């Protein structure tokens, strides 16, 4: 309740009456001391085998996101000993394969870095699951107000969850990942080669954090809970997948996400909660004063995957967005950068997901 209210207050207050008429918002250069070099650990052990991912990095000395950290040794343990090793599959990305978290077991990870530093997470007990009954999809037109207060109409693909809560002592969180194909422009060449497509896998609505404390609800039936809203843009020109994950999480993890939600919804109004650094659940055993960011969580997850084709749209998208089709113009600068080097797009890779 409190979270929902504060969050909605945040989103709306900047348009309040005169604020709506007389306020203004502008990006500024605000000098701060960039703090780099802090270890960041995020990831999970899941009841879904391919979701046991941990990412390691260090905050950058610049304004960029953390630099991935390679070469670490990561192990996950339960009450009975070591369960698995997380192996590095990409720079800074580690995966424990062929492992499934077991309800009621308590998990923690231990990390050893190449420089000898040793880290450990607080234990997380794998919660019981709640059923994800149904996912509903909807395409709607909405007016969106930009920072300058100018409303424009845009089309959105919205995803709703219907769930049955098995227990009141449950904390749930939803996330929706999307995967889509991006085919770069196929310029004519004497060899007739076709540039390989890229596959983009990412969170469909990353700043929307939907989580609930079931103990605060009067019903065990959750109906039409909006969990993601994705603007329909060029990415819908090709096949699209949406995977909706419903995670039962621990109370500590719920608290962590509650704080992330507060920070994600700051709008500078008097109703903003004062921001602060979020403490995670990892500590450095070799240097207790060292700060570690991030959270390792044990998630009992269920998911539903849905594919979506351009033909599923109730309108023709092609005239509305810029495409990567070859137009006869051989000057690469006349094309969008994503059409030239699709791998430069955030979260892009040439690796095709096995289910794609």
């Amino acid at each position, binding site marked *: *309740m*409190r979270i929902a209210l504060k969050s909605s*207050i945040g989103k709306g207050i900047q348009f309040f*009456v005169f604020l709506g008429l*007389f306020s203004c918002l502008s990006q500024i250069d605000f000098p701060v001391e960039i703090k780099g070099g802090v270890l960041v650990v995020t990831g999970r052990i899941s009841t879904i085998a391919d979701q046991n991912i941990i990412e390691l990095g260090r*905050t950058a000395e610049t304004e960029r996101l953390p630099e991935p950290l390679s070469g670490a040794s990561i192990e996950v343990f339960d009450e009975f000993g070591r369960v698995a090793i997380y192996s590095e599959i990409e720079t800074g990305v580690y995966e424990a394969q062929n492992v499934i978290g077991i309800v009621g077991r308590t998990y923690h990870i231990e990390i050893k870095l190449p420089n000898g530093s040793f880290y450990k997470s607080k234990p997380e007990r794998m919660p019981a699951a709640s059923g994800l009954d149904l996912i509903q999809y909807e395409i709607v037109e909405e007016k969106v107000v930009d920072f300058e207060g100018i409303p424009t109409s845009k089309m959105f693909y919205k995803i709703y969850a219907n769930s049955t809560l098995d227990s009141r002592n449950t904390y749930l969180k939803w996330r929706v990942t999307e995967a889509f194909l991006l085919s770069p422009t196929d310029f004519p060449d004497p060899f007739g080669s076709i540039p390989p497509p890229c596959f983009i896998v990412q969170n469909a609505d990353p700043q929307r954090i939907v989580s609930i404390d079931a103990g605060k609800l009067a019903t065990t039936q959750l109906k039409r809970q909006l969990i993601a809203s994705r603007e329909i843009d060029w990415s819908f020109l090709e096949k699209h997948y949406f995977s909706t994950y419903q995670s039962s999480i621990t109370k500590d993890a719920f608290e962590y996400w509650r704080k992330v939600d507060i920070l994600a919804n700051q709008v500078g109004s*008097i109703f903003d909660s004062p921001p602060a650094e979020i403490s995670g659940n990892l500590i450095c055993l070799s240097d207790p004063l060292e700060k570690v960011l991030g959270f390792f969580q044990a998630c009992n997850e269920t998911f539903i995957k849905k594919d979506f084709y351009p033909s599923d749209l109730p309108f023709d998208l092609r005239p509305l967005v810029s495409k990567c089709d070859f137009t006869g113009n051989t000057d690469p600068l006349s094309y969008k950068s994503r059409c030239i080097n699709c791998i430069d797009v955030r979260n892009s890779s040439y690796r095709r997901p096995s289910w794609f």
Partner: protein
Amino acid sequence: MISSKGSSFLFLVLIISVVGKIGLAQENWEMPFTIIGDSTRGNGNAILTGIVINGASKEPLVEAHLSFDFFKYYGRTDQFGRFAIELPPGRYKLVVRYVGMKPAYFRVKVLGSGLLNIAMEEGYELPEVEVSDRPLDSNIKESLAGLSKFTLKEIKNLPAFMGEVDILKSIQTLPGVTSVGEGSSGFNVRGGRSDQNLILLNGAPLFNSSHALGFVSGFNQDVITNFSLYKGNVPANFGGRASSVLEVNTKLGDFEKWQFQGGVGLISSRFLAEGPLVRNKSSILAAIRSSNSDWALQQAENPDVNRSAFNFYDANLTLANKFNERSLLKLNIYSSNDFFRFSQRFGFEWQNFIANAEWKSRTDKKLSPTLNIAFGQYKSTLIDPSPTNPSQLKNNLIYYQIKETVDYLPNEIHSIKSGFESTAYLPKPEALSGYNGNTSIVEKAVDKNYGIESGIFVNDDYRFSENISISAGLRYSIYSQIGSAKVFNYQENTPKLESTIIDTLHFSNGQSIKTYQGLEPRISGRFNLAESQSVKVSYNRMRQYIHQISNTTAPTPVDIWQVSTTYLPPQVADNFSVGYFRNLKDNMFETSVELFYKSMNNLVEYKDFPALYLNPHIETELLSGKGRAFGGEIYARKLKGRWTGWISYTYSQTQVSVDSPNKSESINDGRWFASNYNKPHNFNIVGNRRMGKGAFSFIFTYTSGRPLTAVESSYITDGTVVPVYSQRNQYNIPDYIRLDVSFTIGNVFKKIEDSLVISFYNLLGRENAYSVFYQRPQSNYFIPKAYQLSVLGATLPSITYNFKL
């Protein structure tokens, strides 16, 4: 949407040319002498006594000012309109002033002691060009340090946001008074928090003095007569807050004839009616002010704004009955309501209600008891009207207060005020329920804590000589938290968390749970160095047993008021100040330099990301800290002439420290850090130019930017960018600069006593930062970018028409 700067200036020039055609008022001293007395005292001086009344209603005028030869000698009336002034025999020009009355001019020839009764004529002079109805050297001769008194007339011509005269904004132009920013309710006095200000409306505490989330004052300008801000020395008859007292008084209805007045503005319209119920015996005053702002919302293109609702009203009712010349009973009722809904996203509703009865009597010439009984209620509702799980969260603070004050005046140089007061805080449970029918929210209520605060006090003002006077007081306050309540016991030497609760104690209804008590000495001394120079020193100790719990950077209407408990001890503040006061050019200019230091204990601070609503063990989210504030204030004011006004500058620092052996209960590793409203530099210029029956006024404001907790890096988890913030309040937002101007045109229609006020808020159209916050840029390769929110980033013109019939 708004007028451009260019068009604003053109309009400004036009208005100046119109206003400038109106001539200047002149005082007239061509009248015969009034001869008084035939004998003198042993020292050769005469004692003039008498009473000042409203000639129409026969009502005694309290605190009317009498000035002989431009304040060479002066006095003021007591609560029964009486005065006694000692002066040498001679010829004098006497001016008597009172709010809402035309100044009365006399030439008097004093031969010896005698009686002078004065009946004043009602009048609505626009504008009142002299900035003060007080003795011009009152700043030199007043015993209390840090006291600012204003009549509504003194601020009525000042530029105001959307034309709404606002006493809270006006006092923020005084040295040592600031606020977090535009659109925030509350103000900060000499480093004190906004909840450390006791706001009294006719003697009864008011817990929210703003409409429209802080943009508009909760006080109807037609009803207010005067207000006083005690920011330095606070007399012992006031208690319960740790920083300052703002005392606001409303007027009585006319005892003689019916009168009507009102105004129409862009934001609100108001109407007041007053008149006798029984001629010369009882009167009634009824006033209402209501917003008319929904039209503005409808004009907005933004679909969220034009689907929103915003309205407020306030109403005042005052009944007065004179049983005889020595006894007056007043019944005041104040009610206000605000409703604000933003689209289908969220809403607020908050209400004030105060009913108080005040009985003033005079048993003999020296003793005057006053009894005040009050009932107050502050209700707030936080609404979530969203289609899924609509809900509302309600808080309701109720209090009952009784206060008896006895004024004893042995002679004209000595006065004693003593009495007692007791306040019971009985809040209703904090309740969460569904909103508008269907909801899946579990209804929940959390009991709030009860408390009774009592105090006895005595304050003695004594003038040892013309050069030395002392105001000394002592207050003893005692507070008890009472049942019914649950008190949780926590493991020793561990942070207070839900998980460290080891026992729960249950207390029955009315049972005493925890008691706090202590003495609160108050002293202020004035030492004249010369006729127009004085030094004042003061020391206060003040205790506060009720606290505003706020999880936001600035106070909001839905903040929770929480009484002291076992784990929430009273805030205790020690305030020191010393000031040098000097008037120049026959009191044309008053100047002062003041230094202050304030130390505060048991300040309420918050853990990071506290969950304050519906929390039965709220102490698990709170921390106890200590605070300090220090600074210097420079003030110069011009009191006479066509141009009047003041310049103020304050340099101050306000800091907090929260330290604990448990790291989770420390803030910034226990080091001192700036409070949310710490603005070291605060500079104001207020000017008022008399133009016959019109006036031109301006306010220029500069303040340092307030502290900010800023993003220093970030990371991504599950695709969400998580900003990593600095330690608390380590940075500052950009500085704030604003210029407001207004024009008052009197007698718009010749047969009506009226005025037209045109004002331009933020004439420079400057986009001042209300806050700096962070949002993720389009490319999530980068950390969140800083954005500046300017609440009022444009010039706001407004026009208000006032009338009196």
